[in-house]
């Protein structure tokens, strides 16, 4: 009896997706560490990695919420550019603003973008891919328009704003400010998704929208809110992005949607909705960050990054299907016996 119990625990551990992912992360990191001659695990490098990819970590949370409801958003790069640009422009003209106000503006713009997308998708019944493809281009155009094709340079920002992304006063001098934001957000959303009715509603809508509607959940509202949250997080990321790179350009965040969707897919978020959790997404984003930071270290040209990430998306999407198929098959077999 005890033997069986042990076996099931062992099975549970090895069968758990997060453990496998953790192994992948470890193998990947060690491989890069060896190949790069011990550069990867240096504190500076790790700090730089989390700093540069904090934006991806933040947006991946929102992307997961949207994908849990069965949707997708490929407009995040443009939303980030628009919100970051608006905030930077206002900041340039009003240097006296506190940093928190700049972030608030960015979040507000992001929320508006998200609200627009969410309304169009859930109330206008536009397929998510079409709606966000349209918004991706519209927001990108709008970014260039509000900035009059110019960009906000480092000298237009105050020192304190530029330093925000480099210093670590929020993390008691140990952890970078941006990473602190990431950690706080992941903890908050872990709790929300796991223990609050709101979080469970999102899962309910994603796994079976009709059943959720019958049981009294306002499906449209939940979907809209997911897009709004994604918009807000993207706006926040827009503020982080401009602070980190100390400039705001019209083309910033191009291709970001790829990273975030890849993070979710690697983390086990199902494209059909209802499956996925925040730990997986964190590990997925970590994989993307390690690849992004590590490949240049071992001498892979930056031009290879896109193709590699694309292959990762495809492979993991297909793997998810294969795993699901074998799970279904096993369940069927068990029923036969």
């Amino acid at each position, binding site marked *: 009896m005890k033997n069986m119990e042990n076996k099931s625990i062992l099975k549970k551990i090895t069968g758990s997706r997060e453990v496998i992912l953790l192994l992948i992360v470890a193998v990947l990191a060690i491989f890069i560490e060896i190949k790069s001659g011990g550069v990867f695990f240096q504190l500076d490098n790790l700090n730089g990695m989390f700093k540069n990819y904090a934006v991806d970590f933040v947006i991946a949370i929102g992307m997961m919420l949207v994908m849990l409801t069965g949707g*997708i958003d*490929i407009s995040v790069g443009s939303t980030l550019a628009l919100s970051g640009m608006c905030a930077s422009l206002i900041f340039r003209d009003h240097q006296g603003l506190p940093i928190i106000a700049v972030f608030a503006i960015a979040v507000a713009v992001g929320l508006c973008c998200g609200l627009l997308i969410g309304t*169009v998708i859930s109330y*206008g*019944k*536009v*397929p998510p*891919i*079409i*709606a966000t*493809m*349209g*918004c*991706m*281009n*519209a*927001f*990108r*155009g*709008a970014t*260039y*328009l509000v900035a009059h*094709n110019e960009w906000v340079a480092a000298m237009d920002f105050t020192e304190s704003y530029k330093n925000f992304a480099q210093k670590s006063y929020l993390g008691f001098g140990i952890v970078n400010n941006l990473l602190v934001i990431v950690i706080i957000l992941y903890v908050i959303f872990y709790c929300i998704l796991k223990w609050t009715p709101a979080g469970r509603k999102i899962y309910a809508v994603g796994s079976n929208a009709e059943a959720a509607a019958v049981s009294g959940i306002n499906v449209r509202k939940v979907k809209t809110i997911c897009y709004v949250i994604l918009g807000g997080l993207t706006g926040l990321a827009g503020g982080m992005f401009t602070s980190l790179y100390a400039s705001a350009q019209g083309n910033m965040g191009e291709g970001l949607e*790829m990273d975030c*969707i890849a993070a979710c*897919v690697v983390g086990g978020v199902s*494209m*059909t909705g209802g499956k996925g959790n925040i730990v997986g997404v964190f590990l997925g984003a970590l994989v993307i960050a390690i690849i992004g930071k590590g490949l240049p270290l071992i001498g892979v*040209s930056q*031009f*290879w*990054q*896109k*193709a*590699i*990430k*694309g*292959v990762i*998306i*495809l492979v993991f*999407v*297909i793997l998810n*299907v294969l795993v*699901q*198929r074998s799970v279904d098959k096993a369940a069927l077999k068990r029923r036969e016996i």
Partner: protein
Amino acid sequence: MAGKSGREIIAEQPFSWKHLLLRWESMLILLLVVVNIMNIAISDKYWSVTGLFRATNSFLNIAFMVLPMCFVLVLGDIDISVGSILAFSATMLGVTYNAGAPMIVAVLVALLTGTVCGCINGVIATQFTELNPMIITFGTQVVYRGLCEIILGDQSTGGLNNVMWFSNLYWGKFGGVVPYMFIVFVLCAIVFGIVQHKTTFGRRMYAIGANREAARYSGINVQGTRFVVYVITGLFAGVAAIFTAASMGSINNAVGKGTEMDAIGICVLGGILTDGGKGNFIGAMISVFLLGLLEYGLGLVNVSSNVMLVIKGALLVISVMIPNLKINVKKKKIA
């Protein structure tokens, strides 16, 4: 014509002027006329044979991707990788030519590249039917664009217009009047139109788009049909790549960015909705010229490309939304 079950029964409708005028295509023609009047008002050189052909040449190279996109959308699928397939095919064309191969080989390589890319999309989409084609083609879109970046880096591959006949594909005119590209496009469009509306293959596509399961049970080879359509889509992205390469003369890794939105947007505005089994080819063709001439006209008055992006994006979303709202109104009326 609501039956007892409340379900709409679509039978042969008697001809009536009211119906004809209320059709989506009539609306599009009306809009086309408005756009043309606007363009005439903007430029006095527009309303002539040369002027019109100059205008159509500005967008028809991308319109080659609209033809198969109609099929894809009728099936209820979507392919957002066409822009990247275009880029990859054009890259292969340029690289092959610059490696010393004759131009005709380079052109064939471009077509082959497009077809292979389409095959990959098709294989994944038909083998893993649980997956939404949206995520598959999103993934392949990234991969194909990534391959361009690997091959080209931040360089461009040029000198394509040194070959006279190749450059003439885009710039040349039959008898000095009609551009070759226009002729090729019209011929392709006729073939695609006939296939979509007059052949069993076309009817099968509509059946699959309307109800995939029902189509399968009635003996239609659903996955085979989808595969063929994906391959055709890849092939014609290759064709679009050839004309685009001929127009630009040199290729960089950003070529064709966002053209997938143009292609899908044109189809959707033409009444081919994304949920499959709806719309017809004529509408899509009218909307090719409608959107193309609109963009050309706006370009004439120096509307910036950024405003154009906003307009195009908004138009795409709105044109998908309108039919949904219309259906809602209809439902309310029946109730």
